[in-house]
């Protein structure tokens, strides 16, 4: 019988620690598939971040460097400048990239660093127990916005994929989701383009994944998927925002 589905080579054969219904696992898989597709396993160095993805080195069978909270884009810059021959990506949550690390992310983009940022937006700080993130939606309650996010008090959710397009150094910026098979297929296509930008030395590429956090959203996995569709996509529209390769 022909095998049609198997574990990507660049993912270790260990179970994920992610909660049921969390999209981190799916996104890990997509990234690993692209690493395999372009035969990058032996060339990749990842700058990991803190947050629910902090254990990346347990899952990805590639070289991984830990970064302080928010600083992955700076760590990746140092790695890539020292080893331009390697494929370098960061994997960051919304707390990581859009709060502490917003300067590092924007400036790496603006310098046109030849790296790829994988940005996982689940509108919440997952690992620390569901506090408000810069991407938390208006009206969304979290443990630190118990009355619902109000722009008078907490400002607006930040749209990173759009923000990245404003910078001269950004070559590619897009937003995708993995809540439906259709969106997932599209996400893979977009991710491939982002990888190609770096592989062809065309500069900075950025992919924002809309992701679920059933645990902190206090929803079933099904409901969480539906929330991505009904609430997140209207405010964070999917699409390729910049493609100047």
């Amino acid at each position, binding site marked *: 019988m022909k095998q049609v589905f198997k574990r990507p080579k660049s993912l270790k054969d260990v179970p994920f620690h992610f909660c049921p219904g969390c999209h981190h696992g799916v996104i890990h898989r997509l990234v690993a598939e692209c690493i395999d597709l372009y035969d990058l396993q032996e060339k990749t160095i990842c700058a990991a971040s803190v947050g629910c993805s902090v254990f990346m080195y347990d899952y990805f069978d590639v070289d991984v460097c830990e970064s302080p909270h928010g*600083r992955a884009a*700076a760590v990746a*810059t140092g790695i890539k400048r020292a*080893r331009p021959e390697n494929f370098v990506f960061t994997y960051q949550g919304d707390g990581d990239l859009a709060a502490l690390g917003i300067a*590092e992310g924007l400036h790496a983009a603006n310098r046109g660093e030849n790296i790829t940022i994988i940005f996982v937006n689940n509108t919440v700080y997952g690992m620390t127990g569901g506090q408000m993130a810069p991407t938390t939606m208006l009206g969304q309650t979290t443990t630190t916005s118990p009355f619902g996010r109000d722009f008078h008090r907490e400002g607006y959710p930040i749209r990173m994929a759009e923000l990245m397009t404003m910078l001269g150094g950004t070559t590619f910026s897009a937003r995708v989701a993995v809540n439906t098979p259709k969106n997932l297929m599209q996400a893979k296509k977009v991710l491939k383009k982002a990888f190609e930008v770096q592989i062809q030395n065309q500069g900075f590429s950025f992919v924002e994944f809309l992701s679920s956090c059933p645990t902190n959203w206090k929803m079933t996995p099904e409901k969480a998927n539906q929330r991505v569709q009904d609430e997140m996509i209207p405010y964070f529209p999917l699409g390729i925002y910049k493609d100047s390769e």
Partner: protein
Amino acid sequence: MSKPNIELINGNESIARGAMAANCKYYFGYPITPQNEIPEYLSRHLPAVGGTFIQAESEIASINMLLGAGATGARAMTSSSSPGISLKQEGISYMAGSEIPGVIVNMSRSGPGLGGISPSQGDYFQATRGGGHGDYRVIVLAPFSVQENYDLTMKAFDLSDKYRNPVLVLGDALLGQMKEPVTLHPYEPREFDKPWTLTGAKGRKSRFLKSLYLNEGDLTKHNWKLFQKYQQMKAEIEYQTYLVEDADLVVVSFGSVARIIKSSINMAREQGMKVGLFRPITLYPYPEEPLRQLSTKIQHFFVVELNTGQMVEDVKLSVDKGAQVDFYGRPPGSIPTPNELFEEIKKVYR
């Protein structure tokens, strides 16, 4: 034999040239007085040797770029001055925790807060006690001349590679700005095995560099391992003595103030006062044992610092119980003259 290459350069340039001589290829920094000649020099000269200079968006970004470059095994450096070093502390802690080498220069100025740009030794605690969070140490080298700026910066790269640990060069505004003739020794390369670097997992298992250990007991084990390493660093202890053999009073000073007080000690000697100098060059590891040995013969010490009392604690911890330790501190904001310090020596000399 060819003539030694001697040039008249300022202290900051001397650091930059020491780094380049030691094959440093990557520099990441953010401007702050009084160390700007370091990035300025490297921005002009690194590209010519195939290196990279990045003016980062902040001190925080630059220390993390250093972390990234260090993780690949490259020789890299960042430099700053006091407030900037405060911002780098989290990154330094991560580097120590993940055992990533890198050289960090602090041409310190006066604080706290924005303080001022005059020389100060107010960052001694920050430098030697870890500075950032957690139970870690960095090797701290304290030059006292433009020549030592060059030599110790070069050495910092070797020590950093040898111990897989950040190394701090602690100077100050005075040592950064003054000009002196410097012998620009060529670097004698030291080879270090680096079986830990991140280069892509070609022909080997994938690797990770991390400081996170959550399983019960793992972090304790990791910290014990780091502790062992910090103990081994004692092999690198360096210090200098001046006229201590017959001394009744030994001044203990480091960096720029040790330089000034050498003149005061000469004045004292001219007046028949038997005064000597003990100058720690490694501030961590501190030259405890040599100082203790000295204190079994000479029982009177006079610690002089450009702060209100920091290194004096290490001196008190090092010397024999019976020894007397006097202290003179000059808070940041002005520099004592040799005459003023001579007056202070007279006050304590018996």
